[in-house]
Structures are given as C-alpha cells and as structure tokens.
C-alpha cells in the first residue's frame, strides 16, 4: 500500500512504569510545531496533568456483552462450550454471564439456537479530547476494575486515523502486554525509554523483543543518563541499537516534572534538548521510510 503521508506516528514505550515515557512524549509533542498527543496509558493516564487542556470534550467508550433471557435458554450449552475465555457458565438450569471475563467477540449471541442471548452495551471508560497551545490531546481512561483497555485504545486510533497534517505522539502503557501491542500497531517508529540500572536493562529487553517481533523501526532514549556507567547504554551498544539521545540525570528536570510542568515550555535549555531529540527522531523516521520503499 502506497500512501502519501506528511506526518509521522511515534510510539513511546518502556518495559516498566516510571522510566520517562510521559516526560519524553509530552515534551516531544510540546517541542513540535503542531502535534497530536495520544495517551494510551488508559489505566493511569497522566499526560493531561502536564498539558492541562482547555475545551474538553468527553465521549464514553463501551463494549458489547451478552445478556441472557433464561426463559428462552434451554440449556444446550453451545455458548458455554464455545467461549474460549469461559465467560459463561450453566448452573442449576440458569445461564450466567461473567461480564469482566467477556472479550466481546459476539460469538455466543450468533450461536444461540434459542435466541436467548442478546447484545447489550457496557461502558468501560471514556476518551477526553482537549487543546493545550499547539498540541491537541486525546486521553483514554479505563474505568477502575475493567479488565482490558484495548477497546479504548482502538477507539483512540479510530478517532485520529485521518489526521495527516500533524505529528502524532503516542504515550504507551508500561510493559509489553496486549494494550502495548495495540498502541504500537500502527506506529511508524518506536522510541524505547530506558533507565540506567540493571533492572532497567531487563525491562528494556522486554520492549526491545516486542518491537523486534512487530518489525518496527526503533531507537532508544537513555533517560536519567549516567556518564560513568549506564547499563542500558551498554545493552544498546552490545545489540547495535540506535541511541537517539541521552537525557542526563538532572534534579531540576525531575523537579519540574514532579510539579507537572512541561520542561520544554518553561525552560529554554530543555526546549533545545527536546527539539534536537525531535530532529533526530524525524531524521530516523525519514531514513526508515526511504529504506522501506
């Protein structure tokens, strides 16, 4: 498929929380001329705390789950046997649906010969849109107790799929589970944020394996960089991984971040750092697109 694209989609991820995904994605978006920031960390989205957006719009996200009419159910158990997630059980002549286990495939409703199952909507969270200077934000929020944020992430990308004039920065959930796969699926490039510890290397390796599996072009940003010895830097050199940049261990930056301030918007020094990081990333993306064609 050949498509003319003027913008790039950058996913920022890491093997664990607290490495600096939000710091990097928020500041790269803030350093861009025009940007979209998508918070896919739906269990604990925090990009909006930095951007403090105006003109907020909210939209509920729901999934379809089955509802049973036990008067029509004849206990054939076709649905119970079909469900690979075991979201249905037939106990004492009654069919039970376990809402939290259901993955909304709709198979049971299709299969039921008695039409005893119908679909109903169940709200699992919301998407909040807003504006902060030149950045347009989409924040996904999963309700507490819900099992999977994947439907919300799908909806986030559905809403943003036609945007072609702004660069898109995706703040991913931590780790390498389904929600992360869903977040990086359509990305042009992945930025892995790493910490300078042995534990950090272990987590970096997890996302390194993931982006390799997904055949995504990627590079690493070494956050809280330690000049004397940085195990994550050693890992990158050993595995011939592109290092996009180093954000030195810096108490002032940590403080700004802890106060939910956007470093790029408060201090010229950080603006220079992140603008140059953004240029490096853009160059990498261009190289990747060129070598693809």
């Amino acid at each position: 498929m050949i498509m003319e694209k003027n913008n790039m989609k950058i996913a920022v991820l890491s093997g664990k929380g607290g490495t600096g995904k939000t710091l990097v994605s928020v500041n790269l978006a803030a350093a861009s001329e025009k940007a979209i920031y998508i918070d896919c960390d739906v269990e604990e989205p925090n990009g909006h705390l930095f951007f403090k957006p105006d003109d907020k719009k909210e939209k509920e996200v729901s999934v379809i789950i089955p509802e049973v009419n036990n008067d029509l159910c004849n206990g054939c158990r076709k649905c119970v046997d079909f469900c690979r997630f075991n979201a249905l059980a037939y106990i004492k002549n009654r069919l039970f649906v376990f809402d939290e286990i259901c993955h909304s495939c709709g198979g049971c409703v299709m299969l039921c010969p008695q039409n005893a199952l119908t679909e109903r909507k169940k709200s699992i969270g919301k998407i909040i849109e807003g504006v902060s200077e030149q950045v347009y934000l989409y924040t996904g929020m999963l309700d507490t107790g819900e099992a999977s944020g994947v439907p919300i992430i799908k909806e986030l990308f559905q809403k943003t799929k036609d945007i072609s004039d702004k660069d898109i920065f995706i703040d991913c959930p931590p780790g390498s589970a389904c929600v992360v796969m869903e977040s990086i699926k359509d990305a042009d490039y992945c930025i892995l944020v790493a910490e300078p510890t042995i534990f950090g290397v272990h987590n970096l390796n997890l996302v390194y394996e993931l982006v390799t599996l997904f055949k995504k072009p990627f590079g690493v940003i070494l956050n809280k960089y330690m000049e004397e010895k940085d195990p994550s830097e050693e890992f990158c050199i050993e595995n011939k991984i592109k290092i996009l940049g180093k954000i030195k261990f810096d108490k002032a930056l940590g403080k700004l971040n802890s106060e939910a301030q956007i470093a790029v918007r408060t201090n010229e020094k950080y603006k220079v750092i992140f603008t140059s990081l953004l240029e490096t990333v853009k160059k990498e993306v261009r190289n990747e697109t060129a070598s693809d064609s």
Partner: protein
Amino acid sequence: MKIAIPVNEKKVESGVCMSFGRTPYFLVNDTEEKENLFIENTASKSTGGAGIKAAQIIVDNEVDVLLTPRCGENASGVFQNAGIKMYKTVGDSVESNIKDFISGNLSLLEEIHAGLHDHGKK
C-alpha cells in the same frame, strides 16, 4: 455426599493442589459409596476464566462440598449460585483433609481472592 478436592496427581496419596482453577485433577470422594473418583480438569489449560470452567466441572459432577486451599471470586460466584459449600484445606494430605472435614474440623473458606489475572503485566 460427594466431596471434591483439587489434587496434583491421579492418586489418593497425591497432595492437595495449591490452585483450584488450574489443578490438573479433582478427586471426588463419595461418602455413601465409599469410593474415590478422579476427574480431569479440562479448564487447566484455558487461556482465561479457568476458575469458572473448573467450577462448572464441579457443578456438573454433582459435588456437594469442595475442599480447597483457595478460590477466586468468579469460581466462588458459581459455587454460591450452585449451593456448593467450600471449606479450607489444612496441610497437604488428601485423606486427612477428608477425615477432618467429616469430623467437622475444617472451617468454611471465607477468604476469596480477586484472581491472579494479568499477573506480571507490569
């Protein structure tokens, strides 16, 4: 009365399995017939919802009482609806747990865990 216990192997000397939903077998002791039956737990290899499926197997085998070291909230919901009582096992031995239950020395399982889903995600 039929008493079920999750067990590690298909023999009476086998220990009580620490997991209810993912135990490989259930031993079902029929107190009237005085016999032991082993049921394979086909739920053990499920990608998800193993507790619900394992509970369905227990219900389908018309068990009256389940002796188990632990149980998740979904399976426990099935048992409540089915009227099956759960008692907490003490120690590893299948035979002594059955004996203790019959003599009234086991207490009801009251601590229901929220499930071990998504472990190791972060």
